[in-house]
């Protein structure tokens, strides 16, 4: 029987990066996605061993019979035999066997009840604590699982599995420091087990014990140089100690060995941008974008990074690469695509091209607030004030861009010395968004100007 319970623990290591706005978009933190320290294979761990408790003399005969039934995998028969007795008539050893048979038949509730009955009679039975830990782990009751693994160790268990599982649960429930010792014990007993190694590495990293983690990792990499997960761990460690070059080298190694998770490809591209290796960054980005169905959020993110580094030509190149997928995109996404193109043309001082793409973008998605705002701002720079005003008005109708649009129109009026209209806009803004309290000073100033203008005209 094999019950595989994959419990997921994500170890994400973040580096601080500045969040820079690129025309309304926000960059996300750099992350390396590591394999989780999963190692627990909770399962029925074999028949009862005598060293923990003995069967009663009157049970020898039935024990022999049950042994042969178990050898023939007739577990139902074993249960039938054992159910001929009241539990209190069975020795703790036989009762444990009954619980284990329930466990092996996936009858978890029954197994739990019987295990607990054994512990009432023999509270220090190591094997029962170990089994109960496994059972609780399967049922995802991690608190009780941890409690029983701890007891199993307290009462003398020296199994690597129990130490490793305790380490894992401590890592989840109490943090890295409480897990390190258990993982070390497990590794001492089974030095070749990669699960303990991975767990210890995760615990050391989380506890910020980087030199120890580094040493462990180097040792592991010497043994298994083609394991991409180890290279990813190395990259994550390097990021933790602010070594982007080391991180990138390790990450590239992992990618070379087949690593292709979205997050890690993104981080690699981001690191390349940070380290000015733009060609490789673009190659990774294109590779990533082309790999799957186009994800506009991902594209936005990449364009944001390229914008941050002012790599407009690369951004344009990226959009060219994506162009063949355009017809497969939704109309809204097509709108966003053209909007990006327009912004790039705007930055590259190609106003006619920019205007064309803004037009296309709004044709595809007339209610895209960010595009309306960008187009309006662009129109102001091109002195197309009437169009800019109209675009601001449209953007005001969209909740997400309402505030910026009201303020943008106010600014437009101020630039054109239409102070009365600007005043109306600013008052509207303050009324609708009271958090803009610093507008009061500006309103006061403009009121003074309007008053002065009125006095002059009268």
């Amino acid at each position, binding site marked *: 029987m094999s019950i595989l319970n994959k419990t997921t623990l994500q170890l994400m290591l973040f580096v601080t990066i500045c969040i820079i706005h690129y025309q309304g978009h926000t960059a996300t933190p750099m992350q390396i996605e590591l394999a989780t320290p999963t190692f627990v294979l909770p399962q029925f761990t074999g028949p009862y061993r005598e060293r923990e408790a*003995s*069967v*009663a003399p*009157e049970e020898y005969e039935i024990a022999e019979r049950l042994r042969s039934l178990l050898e023939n995998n007739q577990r139902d028969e074993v249960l039938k035999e054992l159910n001929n007795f*009241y*539990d*209190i*008539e069975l*020795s*703790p*050893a036989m009762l444990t066997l009954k619980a284990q048979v329930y466990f092996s038949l996936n009858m978890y509730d029954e197994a739990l009840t019987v295990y607990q009955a054994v512990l*009432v*009679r*023999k509270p220090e039975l190591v094997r029962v604590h170990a089994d109960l830990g496994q059972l609780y782990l399967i049922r995802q009751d991690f608190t009780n699982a941890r409690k029983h693994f701890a007891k199993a160790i307290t009462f003398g268990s020296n199994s690597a599995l129990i130490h490793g599982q305790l380490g894992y649960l401590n890592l989840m429930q109490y943090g890295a420091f409480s897990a390190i010792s258990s993982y070390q014990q497990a590794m001492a007993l089974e030095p070749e087990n990669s699960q303990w190694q991975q767990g210890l590495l995760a615990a050391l990293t989380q506890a910020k014990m980087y030199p120890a983690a580094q040493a462990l990792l180097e040792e592991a990499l010497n043994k298994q140089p083609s394991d991409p997960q180890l290279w990813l761990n190395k990259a994550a460690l390097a990021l933790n100690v602010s070594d982007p070059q080391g991180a990138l080298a390790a990450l590239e190694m992992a990618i070379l060995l087949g690593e292709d998770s979205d997050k890690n490809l993104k981080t690699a591209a981001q690191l390349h941008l940070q380290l000015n290796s733009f060609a490789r960054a673009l190659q990774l980005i294109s590779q990533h974008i082309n790999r799957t169905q186009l994800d506009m959020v991902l594209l936005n993110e990449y364009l944001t990074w390229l914008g941050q580094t002012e790599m407009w030509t690369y951004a344009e190149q990226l959009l060219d690469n994506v162009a063949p997928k355009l017809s497969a995109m939704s109309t809204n996404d097509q709108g966003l695509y053209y909007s990006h193109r327009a912004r790039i043309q705007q930055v590259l001082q190609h106003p006619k091209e920019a205007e064309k793409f803004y037009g296309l973008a709004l044709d595809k998605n007339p209610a895209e607030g960010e595009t309306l705002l960008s187009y309006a701002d662009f129109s102001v720079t091109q002195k197309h004030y009437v169009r800019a005003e109209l675009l601001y008005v449209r953007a005001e109708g969209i909740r997400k861009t309402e505030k910026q649009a009201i303020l943008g129109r106010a600014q437009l009026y101020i630039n054109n010395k239409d102070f009365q209209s600007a005043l109306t806009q600013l008052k509207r803004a303050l009324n609708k968004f009271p958090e803009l309290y610093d507008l009061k000073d500006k309103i006061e100033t403009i009121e003074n100007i309007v008053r002065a203008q009125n006095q002059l005209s009268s």
Partner: protein
Amino acid sequence: MLKLTLILIGISSLLSCGSTPDTVVNCSVQSWHEQGKNTALDGKSVRNFEHYVKHCGERLPAEAKAEFIQGFSVGITEYCTYENGNKRGLNNLPITNNCPLEARANFEEGYKNGDFVYRDNQRNIDRMSKRNEQETMQEMREKPVEEVKQ
């Protein structure tokens, strides 16, 4: 006639011993937990519950068995002590096999010691009664001589 009646009563009570508990079966037990506990404290087997199953049938509440066993488990732990084993041994009662394995050692030790004391007492009593017998015999042997002398 009287002899025959007594023999018949004796036989029928011996036959009924195997099929009913020592007490009369009461199906409207107030607390099955207490009932189980008392059964254990009396040194009886958990299988006494079978009598209730047999005699009460559907009148037996659904929770009776679990509560009885729970009570029995509590009671048997209280019962299986050195003192109770010792008492049984001292009173020359047969050792019961109802104690769970983990609580059996103390009970059996107590029983063994009690049984030893019982047997030792018995030996002393035997010895004393034998001596008394011998003395009486001696007295009887000496008595006729005196009577003759008189």
